[in-house]
């Protein structure tokens, strides 16, 4: 990843994090909140790999926790793992698959919500499992609606990396 890419990615995730905390967090549809930051992170991680995804997730999470004055590191922890996991998926199985962004967003939405629930529960904070589970389907739908435009925007902003630039642990034999 070049310096220019890094700056662009940082700006993208910063804007997404600020928009998420300030604007999208107040939009409730059937108990769910559209997560523009998560979708942006998924798009970024798919295009730039696991390490970039993990680092992006960490710093985006820090911005969210700082802006919302929440427990510092909590969102970072979950977004780091989400960015890393999606990045790995992009580097391996999801490579060049048209459905990869949608599948990633759907799965990560569920894992992100459950991950936050678990972390809050472990910390002894309010963890309304029923409300989270009920809002899962609307959250997936909302994030899937956001996926196409955000992925297109991020793809336009960050040029896709050539195959040989990506880390590959899967060796194709034959």
């Amino acid at each position, binding site marked *: 990843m070049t310096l220019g890419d890094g700056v662009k990615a940082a700006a993208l995730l*910063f804007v997404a994090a*600020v*928009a998420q*905390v*300030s*604007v999208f967090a*107040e*939009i409730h549809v059937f108990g769910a909140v559209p997560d523009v930051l998560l979708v942006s992170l998924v798009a970024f991680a798919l295009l730039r790999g*696991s*390490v970039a995804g*993990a*680092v992006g997730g*960490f710093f985006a*999470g*820090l*911005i969210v*926790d*700082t*802006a919302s*004055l929440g*427990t*510092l*590191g*909590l969102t*970072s*922890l979950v977004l*780091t*793992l989400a960015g*890393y996991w999606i990045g790995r998926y992009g580097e391996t199985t999801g490579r060049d698959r048209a459905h990869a962004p949608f599948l990633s967003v759907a799965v990560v939405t569920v894992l992100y919500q459950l991950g936050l629930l678990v*972390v809050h529960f472990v*910390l002894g904070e309010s963890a309304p499992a029923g409300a989270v589970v009920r809002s899962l389907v609307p959250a997936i739908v909302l994030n899937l609606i956001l996926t196409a435009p955000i992925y297109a925007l991020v793809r336009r902003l960050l040029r896709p990396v050539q195959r040989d630039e990506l*880390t*590959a*642990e899967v060796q194709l034999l034959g």
Partner: protein
Amino acid sequence: MLASSVQRSKPTPYPSKARSALIRRAIVVALVLVALTLVTISFRSPTAGALHDVQGAGSTVLRPFQIAATRVAAPFRDAYDYVHSLANAKSENKKLRQINAKLREKDIHRAALAAKEQQLAKLLHFEQGRAFPNDFQAINVAVIAPPSGPFSHSLTVEAGSSSGIRLNSPVVSGEGLVGIVSNVTPHTAEVTLLTDPDSFVAARDVNTQVRGMVHTGPGGTLILDQVPKQLRVKARDVLVTAGTRNARYPDLYPYGIPIGRVSSVGATDTATFLQVQVQPYASLGSLDAVAVLVPKKPRR
């Protein structure tokens, strides 16, 4: 050839790929550890400490960006709220209508109870007042069938002979005389109202002591009849039951039960008696509860 073993070449190592995987994992583990450390510190001292100060400073730096984002989003949010409120208006309207109907129902129920309570309070007041005849006891009963129309002059109460009600017992409400018991069954009784054409009640003008007979006159209005023209009766005079004058012929109604008020007095040259119209005190068409007056000593 087939039996001979084939020497496999030693697998080529991928030092650069292995190293990058190691670095990648190290970075992620480091980030996770940093995040966990931050969570631990932040959780242990959420309102004080260096980390809290850093977070506060970061929040201050981010504040202008948040305000800018909010301002940029404001028109979109307003548009969304407008559309959302429009979409919800119909269902909200339906819900409010349902609530309104329920409240109206409750209001009517309360008003009905209040009206009933007012009647019962008046009845109790009458029974405890000085006008109540000493040699009678009151049996309070609910009206189960009010007069069914303009040509009906009777009502049914939900108590009968098993409760001590007897034939020809006077019936009163909190306002005044209602009528007389004309039919009794074990658990119900029929009350013939004051306005029935066959009803005659001996009455006395409390103001002038003039006596007469209250009954329904031509046209269905209540009149005080049998009052000679030379006697004086004024409008707004109060009429009460006259009671027994001759012990050998006891009256069905005890003395002093309010009947009504004189509404108009007229006289013609040809008529022998005054034409006195009476407005009954009791609201005979809207009674919920009445008291049946039963003599304490049985009549002979």
